[in-house]
């Protein structure tokens, strides 16, 4: 079954990803993403009755760390790849309208 992602859905996803895309790109991605989704839909053909859902591919659980501090990075190292910095701070374009986590 071919998935069909329409232009509105593509625009919505682009907005969520903070991407600014042209009308031509919307049409292109709608077609390409529909094909990707259609490909994924092949998974629906598998019989999964009686198989417990998993949240992780590895048969491993409970990987923990003790609450013991390790030496953090020197701030100079932390900042060395920053495109812009000011003193010991990362400097970024003005953040507007933040909705905290």
């Amino acid at each position: 079954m071919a998935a069909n992602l329409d232009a509105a859905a593509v625009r919505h996803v682009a907005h969520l990803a903070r991407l600014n895309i042209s009308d031509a790109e919307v049409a292109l991605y709608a077609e390409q993403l529909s094909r990707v989704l259609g490909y994924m839909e092949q998974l629906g053909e598998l019989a999964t009755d009686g198989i417990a859902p998993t949240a992780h591919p590895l048969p491993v659980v409970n990987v923990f760390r003790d609450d013991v501090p390790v030496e953090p990075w020197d701030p100079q190292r932390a900042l060395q790849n920053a495109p812009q910095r000011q003193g010991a701070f990362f400097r970024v374009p003005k953040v507007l309208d933040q909705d905290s986590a």
Partner: protein
Amino acid sequence: MMPSTPTVRPIIGLEIHVQLQTRTKMFCGCPVRYDAPPNSCVCAVCLGHPGALPVINRRALEYAVLTGMALNCTIARHTKWDRKSYYYPDLPKNYQISQYDMPLAEHGSFEFDVDGTTKRVRIKRAHLEEDAGKNIHDTPGCTLVDLNRAGTPLLEIVTEPDINSAEEAYVFCVELQRLVTCLGVSEGIMQKGQMRFEPNVNLAIPADGSECRTPIAEIKNLNSFRSVRNAIAYETQRQLAAWQEDPEYVHGRRPNENRGWNDDRGVTEYQRPKEAAHDYRYFPDPDLVPVELTDAMLEATRALMPELPVARRRRLVQQFRLSPKDAETIAEHRPTAELFECVLAAGGPPETVGKQFVNVWLKLANDRGAAVTDLGVSAERMAELAQITTEGIVNKTAANQLAETMLTRPAPPRQIAEELGLIQVQDQAATARWVEQAFAENAQAVRDAMENPKKAKAAAGFLRGQVMKLSGGKADPKLVGDLIEKRLAGG
């Protein structure tokens, strides 16, 4: 405080973020420090560098489970981690690690007392996540980012909308702070942002035989108890006024909204419609394996559970007949309450211990900006002071002075009392002589006490004070009172 129509019912749910007091971050070994220089507590994991892998902090998980248990939640036997899309530079991975559809704890409840009535609020869920760093906006044209806080363990607690007034919300937050500090899972310091509150508020308004509800407003990021109370009180009034102005201001017909609290102006301010913010595209984090909580792990955590503040206060009132106010004061901090019970265990008479603990020891501690447990006075010596006060060996005034001396002198209280001459004089004859002297020296007060009904009470009190003064604080106040009364009556 409340809207003018008494039947209007506020419907309030709370989301609370609590920073856990672990030594290290949620998913990396960077130390959690509040006042470190910018970007000095960071590493590849909390900076979101490619290929860096998170590992769960065992202690943070234990703290979260313990808190979930204290909130009477069902603890999930199987839980996992999800990525929540995030577009601000204070979490540089572009997502926050959180828990979406399988939270660590669910379906709990929290009980506390408001104005003498027990209030129960259901807890919808509690889950672990990571805090963001700090964006600093005080430089024009740019934002500065400090990632020290990024990755700090956060417990998000979500209540059902069972709270019905600003006051109930206020008390809930105060009690939750007492709970987490008692559990030792968070310091709960507001000024450091260790607890942040987001109330969801709307109103149920009876109208035309049915009930209509206003759109839900989520008030973002309140970081004091006072702002929780004020913001909700303001918001309930605002919504009622908005509905009175516009009959279409109803849930479903007008959008829910996010609002911010402006503390200076004392108002909530519109930020944006709420729907717009809500497509977070959660998906399971492939970098973290699930957690399976075994019986042994849950038992080990449950063993850490102390007596909780609300229960302890109720017990102090019932078992030792403390006033609810004194019980609240004593149970405010766990070490204080534990010391108090040690004083009782050391044989201090409960009633006197209760009064002295609040009026003497806690006061001495407050005056010194110290905790009562840091005064350097053992439970045994506190018990002895209460004992000799109860027996009348020293009076209450002398006990105050004695307590202060005990801070610097390790000797037994009774011995100090003897050295300072504070042993109460039970001698009738000696006391009578002080009374006689006081009467002789204060003729006007004696006349007032005997003849002037308006001044009689104050004058008698003055005379009692004079006798105590003449005795050097050693007279038995009760005996003094009796003798003065007798003499004034012409005896």
